[in-house]
């Protein structure tokens, strides 16, 4: 071991001195490595800080209590895990009485204390009308509530006539001492302004139990409890048996063994092997990118050191020593960069907490550093630096000592072996991409293929650069000089070009995949209701609920039109028991043979089969006047209107009534008859329902139609109205959902492409600029010569621009070419559409292709052509134009 260190010590000393002497280049390398380390460390720390673990979350949920017991109004036994990240609502077994505080007390036994926490919607009169904050009734005088709220002004309410309000609610114009008026006409004095310790920006009014009157059917009921010795897992299970969930301090701090948990309740957050593989690929690509970006600086450094390295060999050093000398440079700079990056990352994370908090209403957890994560990230940085120094180290150790010492610059010949291996890797990558394209879930295969192809391409770049140098004859002077110089200094040029190429390859591949997926989604988008209308669904609603919901909509949106959709659910219970036998209906084209047409339906209006001619208007199916007339005629004749992706050209349909002993059993046909039929082909590939049938059909099948959803339209429904409507429906029936049809939305893709493009552009810019400025400083003597033979001030700028353009363009073109392969390949598994029937029509009415390929040309041309040219232009404009003097003449 000491021998080992003895070999390294002088080299490390040389490296340290050298790093200090060539400050500019050292700072460049430091930045290249420290910045990614900094960014990742900062993200990791912020992630861990904003992630509130169950244990960290205890104070904000429990205050000072031992447990929070919640009722979801379940009347069956429930199941949960330790931190409530997995719960199963009750649906079977003995029907229980609705649990109350007494239930909790009974379970927890003597010595326990229970205080109620009730939440529900409140209506408060404000200047602008009526505001609907959440009302929370809780005895805030009880020490168990300590830690739930921070007091920002005033104090907690002490009497029934006092309330505390949240900061957001106070922003509506209330302050301590004001009075607020509830919708029952009574007023309360604002005693204090508070903020929840868990969630910011809540619209809340707090009061003592009974002071707000939130006790109604929509109320959320919970209890804070204290119990000597805490609430153990056994007690939690007992509460579960009563239909209650419990978040217990004791259980979270000491979770029960897995054997005591229901199968499936075990924490599923561990990484799967696929995720590990993806993580490994991402880390590998990130390290490769850093290596490539820092590589040129090391290559230049090594060449400047060439003479001293040759002297090391001349004075008895071995090749190994020369390699060490260069690697030591990587080690020194890498270690400093990793350290700086790690410390900087933590500092940035610390400083960025308020900013991150601004994006989230969840209060961040305590500032949390993971030594293991930071060490791993810093190690990646160090490894990147050493790896970046490997190629220059090997080249330096192979140099011809004599040639260097007598000052002849031998041209390094590219060996044959490495291009051969690289070509094999590239070919292998392309081949693997083709294989992955044929697999059903070939995304991971293609990702591996992409990495192989990129690594292969990186290995081939020196060869490409050399060939370009040979082909440069006939180009304008500045470009010719730039290309030839780039070819001569391949060890500097190749990594930069490779960095650009690898980036562009990644961006192009991901861009094509993402854009294609979006294209498919757009083409196969199925509207779930009429455009701009809101669809209210409620699978559990009874007829009375529907009436209440209609009334609520009318109250909220008086100008709107509300239509009920009549239909059949997929399974119609035969008895009152929801677990009991069910009937269902299937409709097939009569002459289509025995085979059932496989088809996806969304039951978008809550119904599997719609009933009556009114459904023609509520479904978002475009049809001609003729089709509409024919459909009405067919329904009047007691027939059906089938919704199919393609028209099989039939005029009759077979209606099948099926029966099953329960929902999960195989249904058996019990009746079958033929009715007149016509076919409509809605947009998209997923049908909004199976068919529209006439009432005669349901009567014949003895399946009574029911209201399955409401359609609200003729008013503008923006996000605000949607939220309002949603809240209104929920207050009537908790199981209701509101969906507003706004057509295909692809904002996320656009943002992802923009983000991808920006990161890509940044990396391309980084690679291009470092290589260009290293090249310019390297070419100093050549510029001096040019000056002596009469080059004007423009020449240096032209060469600088040509340099940037060359590196950017060559890298981008190669990268795009390589990126296209996995990009196109991944569209096959991503948008594989074997389930789309042949000849189905897309949203625009044309026949849908087998799979979708959409190349984001704006992104690709922007990255491949525009960015390098713009970079070249900027470099050309900003480069120093003054030419250096020839050194010999001084």
């Amino acid at each position: 071991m000491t021998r080992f260190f003895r070999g390294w010590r002088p080299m490390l000393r040389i490296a340290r001195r050298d790093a200090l002497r060539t400050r500019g280049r050292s700072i460049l390398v430091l930045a290249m490595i420290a910045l990614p380390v900094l960014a990742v460390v900062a993200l990791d720390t912020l992630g861990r800080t904003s992630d509130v673990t169950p244990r960290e979350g205890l104070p904000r949920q429990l205050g000072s209590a031992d447990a929070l017991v919640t009722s979801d109004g379940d009347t069956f036994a429930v199941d949960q895990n330790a931190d409530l990240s997995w719960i199963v609502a009750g649906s079977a077994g003995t029907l229980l009485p609705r649990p109350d505080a007494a239930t909790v007390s009974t379970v927890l036994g003597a010595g326990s204390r229970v205080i109620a926490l009730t939440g529900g919607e409140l209506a408060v009169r404000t200047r602008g009308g009526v505001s609907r904050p959440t009302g929370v009734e809780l005895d805030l005088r009880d020490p168990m509530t300590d830690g739930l709220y921070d007091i920002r002004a005033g104090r907690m309410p002490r009497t029934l006539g006092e309330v505390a309000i949240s900061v957001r609610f106070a922003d509506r114009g209330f302050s301590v001492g004001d009075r607020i008026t509830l919708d029952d006409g009574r007023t309360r004095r604002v005693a204090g302004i508070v903020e929840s310790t868990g969630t910011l920006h809540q619209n809340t009014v707090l009061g003592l139990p009974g002071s707000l009157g939130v006790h109604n059917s929509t109320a959320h009921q919970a209890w804070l409890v204290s119990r000597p010795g805490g609430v153990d897992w056994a007690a939690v299970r007992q509460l579960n048996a009563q239909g209650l969930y419990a978040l217990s301090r004791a259980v979270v701090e000491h979770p029960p063994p897995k054997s005591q948990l229901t199968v499936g309740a075990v924490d599923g957050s561990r990484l799967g092997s696929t995720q590990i593989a993806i993580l490994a690929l991402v880390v590998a690509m990130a390290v490769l990118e850093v290596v490539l970006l820092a590589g040129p600086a090391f290559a230049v450094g090594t060449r400047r050191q060439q003479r001293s390295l040759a002297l090391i060999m001349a004075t008895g050093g071995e090749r190994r020593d020369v390699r060490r000398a260069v690697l030591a440079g990587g080690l020194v700079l890498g270690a400093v960069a990793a350290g700086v990056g790690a410390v900087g990352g933590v500092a940035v994370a610390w400083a960025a907490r308020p900013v991150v908090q601004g994006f989230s209403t969840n209060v961040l957890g305590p500032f949390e550093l993971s030594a293991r994560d930071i060490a791993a990230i810093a190690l990646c940085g160090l490894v990147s630096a050493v790896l970046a120094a490997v190629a220059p180290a090997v080249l330096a150790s192979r140099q011809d000592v004599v040639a260097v010492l007598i000052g002849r610059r031998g041209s390094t010949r590219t060996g044959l072996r490495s291009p051969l291996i690289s070509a094999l890797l590239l070919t292998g990558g392309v081949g693997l991409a083709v294989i992955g394209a044929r697999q059903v879930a070939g995304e991971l295969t293609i990702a591996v293929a992409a990495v192989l192809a990129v690594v292969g391409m990186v290995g081939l770049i020196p060869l490409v650069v050399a060939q370009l140098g040979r082909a440069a004859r006939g180009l304008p002077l500045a470009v010719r000089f730039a290309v030839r110089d780039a070819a001569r200094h391949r060890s500097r040029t190749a990594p930069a070009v490779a960095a650009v190429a690898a980036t562009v390859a990644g961006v192009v591949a991901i861009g094509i995949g993402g854009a294609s997926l979006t294209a498919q989604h757009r083409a196969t988008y199925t509207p779930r209701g009429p455009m701009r209308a809101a669809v209210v669904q409620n699978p559990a609603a009874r007829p009375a609920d529907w009436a209440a919901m209609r009334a609520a909509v009318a109250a909220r949106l008086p100008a709107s039109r509300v239509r009920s959709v009549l239909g059949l659910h997929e399974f119609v219970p035969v008895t009152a028991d929801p677990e009991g036998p069910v009937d269902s209906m299937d409709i097939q084209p009569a002459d289509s043979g025995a085979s059932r047409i496989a088809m996806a339906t969304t039951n978008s209006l809550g119904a599997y089969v719609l009933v009556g001619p009114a459904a023609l208007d509520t479904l978002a199916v475009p049809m001609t006047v003729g089709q509409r007339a024919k459909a009405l005629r067919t329904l009047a004749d007691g027939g059906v209107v089938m919704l199919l992706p393609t028209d099989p050209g039939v005029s009759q349909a077979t209606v099948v009534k099926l029966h099953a002993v329960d929902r999960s059993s195989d249904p058996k046909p019990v009746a079958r008859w033929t009715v007149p039929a016509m076919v409509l082909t809605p947009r998209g590939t997923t049908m909004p329902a199976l068919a529209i049938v006439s009432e005669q059909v349901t009567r014949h099948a003895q399946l009574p139609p029911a209201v399955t959803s409401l359609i609200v339209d003729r008013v503008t429904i923006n996000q605000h109205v949607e939220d309002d409507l949603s809240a209104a429906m929920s207050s009537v029936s908790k199981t209701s959902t509101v969906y507003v049809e706004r057509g295909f939305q692809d904002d996320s893709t656009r943002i992802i492409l923009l983000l991808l493009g920006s990161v890509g552009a940044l990396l391309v810019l980084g690679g291009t600029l470092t290589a260009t400025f290293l090249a310019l400083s390297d070419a100093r003597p050549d510029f001096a010569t040019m000056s002596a033979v009469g080059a004007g001030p423009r020449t240096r700028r032209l060469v600088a621009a040509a340099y940037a353009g060359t590196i950017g363009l060559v890298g981008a073109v190669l990268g795009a070419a390589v990126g296209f392969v996995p990009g196109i390949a991944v569209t096959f598994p991503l948008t594989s559409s074997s389930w789309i029937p042949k000849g189905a029509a897309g949203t625009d009415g044309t026949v849908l292709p087998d799979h979708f390929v959409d190349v984001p040309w704006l992104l690709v041309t922007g990255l491949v052509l525009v960015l390098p040219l713009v970079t070249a232009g900027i470099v050309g404009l900003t480069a120093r134009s003054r030419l250096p003097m020839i050194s010999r003449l001084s």
Partner: protein
Amino acid sequence: MSTVLRIEDLTRVHGQGESEVHALRGVSLSVDSGELVAVMGPSGSGKSTLLTIAGGLDSPTGGTVTIEGVELGGLSRALLARLRRRSVGYVFQDFNLIPALTAAENVALPRELDGDSARASRRLAMHALDEVGIGELADRFPDDMSGGQQQRVAIARAVVGDRRLILADEPTGALDTDTGEQVLRLLRARCDAGSAGVLVTHEARHAAWADRVIFLRDGLVIDETGPPAAVDSLLGASTTR
């Protein structure tokens, strides 16, 4: 014979105050076309400074430089660069060829920089290379050439496009005696063909190729060889050669 280069009372001070150094203290010199003038002196005598100023790479503190009737004092950097492309050719000790360009491209550089078409400048470059006797090496890169060949390329570059003033700074410094002599023969031939040449050297045998030798000491001309003496006087008694 016309005067190509005229230097009058040239002074050049480097630095200021304490570190003030007088590189030239009033040097006058004129070189006619067809004439090769050698400047000799120990290192630090100011001979290289003289050459940088004569080619417009550096500007004097005082005095004037006139090339083919044009005074350099009032010229912009761009005009000075144009002057170097069209009128002045430099030859350096370490050749200073651009390794990324072939021999022909190196020679064509001043013409290309001046805006000539690639084809036209290559034709001129080939002509210049033929003149220095290495036309067949036109497409080689400098790294693949011997020192003497590289210096021939450099001379070709200095004369391409019919430039009338060649400024050579120790052009034989990196060459052996015989190769150096060939380079000087080339320079001599160019001057005999009508160019004016200034050769800075510290080697007497190379300076001897010049028509006149000027001795520079501490920024001053201290002596110069006059017009050529009769051969006979040196060789003693009557000769028949």
